[in-house]
């Protein structure tokens, strides 16, 4: 379980996150919605330890991410997929996927490579295993990013606007894979602008506004007239997003 308790984050005098409370149970898909600058990505970056907390605590299966040992343990249980892919440019696709399994989890190279190839098969990148990332399209790169995350056999998958840098066709490629993972019961924390997709795969939707968590409800309720749509700010947000 990921527990987020009273988390605050300030950059100088700017309060980016204000006393956030959130729990993600194993098997759940939780989507975080909100306009840009609402603090969604910062929240993900707090969970994986790229930002230090200004207040409160985050625990991943009981491991406090503000301690070195806790963060190391938390990072073995979760894996992140980034908006701009952040693949290692000097390594082939296969090397990108196997680096952490070999050098962090200590898997034997042969085993890590077999697993990696199986994952690449799964996302349709069998032929690209030995290519360098720069030769791939954006959609292919992001599928590598997903494989790199899955190779860690994470309990929690953290997805930070993973389709924002992709055109619609490539977005489709990536979302199909995520839908499949969701159906298989992978736990996900999902920051996105893809409203329709979020509605389809999410168990719960969380809405952030200016660093505050203003709504946390089941997906069904969030999109119903008496649930999320009853909140004016969410109604405005949704109508704006679906118009685009």
């Amino acid at each position, binding site marked *: 379980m990921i527990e987020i308790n009273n988390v605050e984050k300030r950059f100088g005098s700017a309060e980016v996150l204000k006393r956030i409370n959130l729990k993600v149970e194993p098997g759940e898909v939780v989507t975080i919605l909100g306009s840009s600058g609402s603090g969604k990505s910062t929240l993900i970056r707090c969970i994986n330890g790229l930002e230090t907390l200004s207040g409160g605590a985050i625990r991943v299966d009981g491991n406090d991410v503000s301690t070195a040992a806790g963060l190391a343990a938390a990072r073995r249980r979760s894996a992140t997929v980034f908006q701009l892919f952040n*693949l*290692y440019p000097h390594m082939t696709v296969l090397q990108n996927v196997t680096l*952490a399994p070999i050098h962090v989890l200590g898997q034997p190279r042969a085993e890590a490579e077999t697993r990696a190839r199986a994952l690449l098969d799964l996302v349709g990148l069998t032929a690209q295993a030995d290519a360098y990332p*720069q030769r791939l399209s954006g959609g292919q790169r992001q599928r590598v990013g997903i494989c790199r995350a899955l190779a*860690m056999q994470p309990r929690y998958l953290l997805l930070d606007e993973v389709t924002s840098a992709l055109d619609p066709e490539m977005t489709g490629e990536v979302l199909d894979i995520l839908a499949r993972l969701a159906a298989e019961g992978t736990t996900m924390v999902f920051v996105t602008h893809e409203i329709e997709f979020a509605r389809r795969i999410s168990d719960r939707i969380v809405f952030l506004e200016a660093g505050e968590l203003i709504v946390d409800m089941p997906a069904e309720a969030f999109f119903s007239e008496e649930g999320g749509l009853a909140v004016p700010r969410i109604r405005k947000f949704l109508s704006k997003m679906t118009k685009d």
Partner: protein
Amino acid sequence: MIRSWNALEPHLGFLLEGFALTVAACVLAVAGAVVLGALIASLRTARSRAARAVAAVYCDLFRNVPFIVQLFFFFYGLPELGIYIGAFETGVLAMSIAGGAFVADVIRAGILSIEQGVIEAARVFGLGRWQIFSRIVMPNALRVSVRPMGSVLINLVLTSSILSTITVNELTGTAKIVAATTFMPFEVYAVLLVLYAALTYALSLAVAGVHRRLNRGMPEAVA
């Protein structure tokens, strides 16, 4: 005016020995300069302020003092400290130290060119600081710095001729002796000039080859 080139023939073996010594000095100095340069570059990008300052002073100093002065400093100075090494070793040492300052600047630029997101990814996946440095930062930095490093190394080859001033009989040193014994200094030095140019040209081709190899898969515009 035209003299017989045959007069040079008996000295070819001797010149070849000098050439071999030049190659040996350059290979050793290049290795030393790259190791030292990588070390200084990592200090220059370290968190510690003191480390950064020390490395910056190193680069500034050894880049702005003529090599021959550095060479004399070590050649005449080291015995004062009770360190007795040969002229060749002194030459290689001085070349490594001076070359290291230039290599450090090149690698530092390479390190600073790495996207922050790539390093964040490595951190999130649980790699330690040393692993990130050795597996992500350094390979990337070296990859983008091959070409500028090539010109530093070519300069090092040209610099190696200065070792002749401390009694090292490398290519220029042997040529000096041959020029004096044959009384054909013009021919000898003209050939030497072309020889060095050919050597550096070959080196630049090799650098281009390494650059292509290390940048496989990179679009040309980026590489």
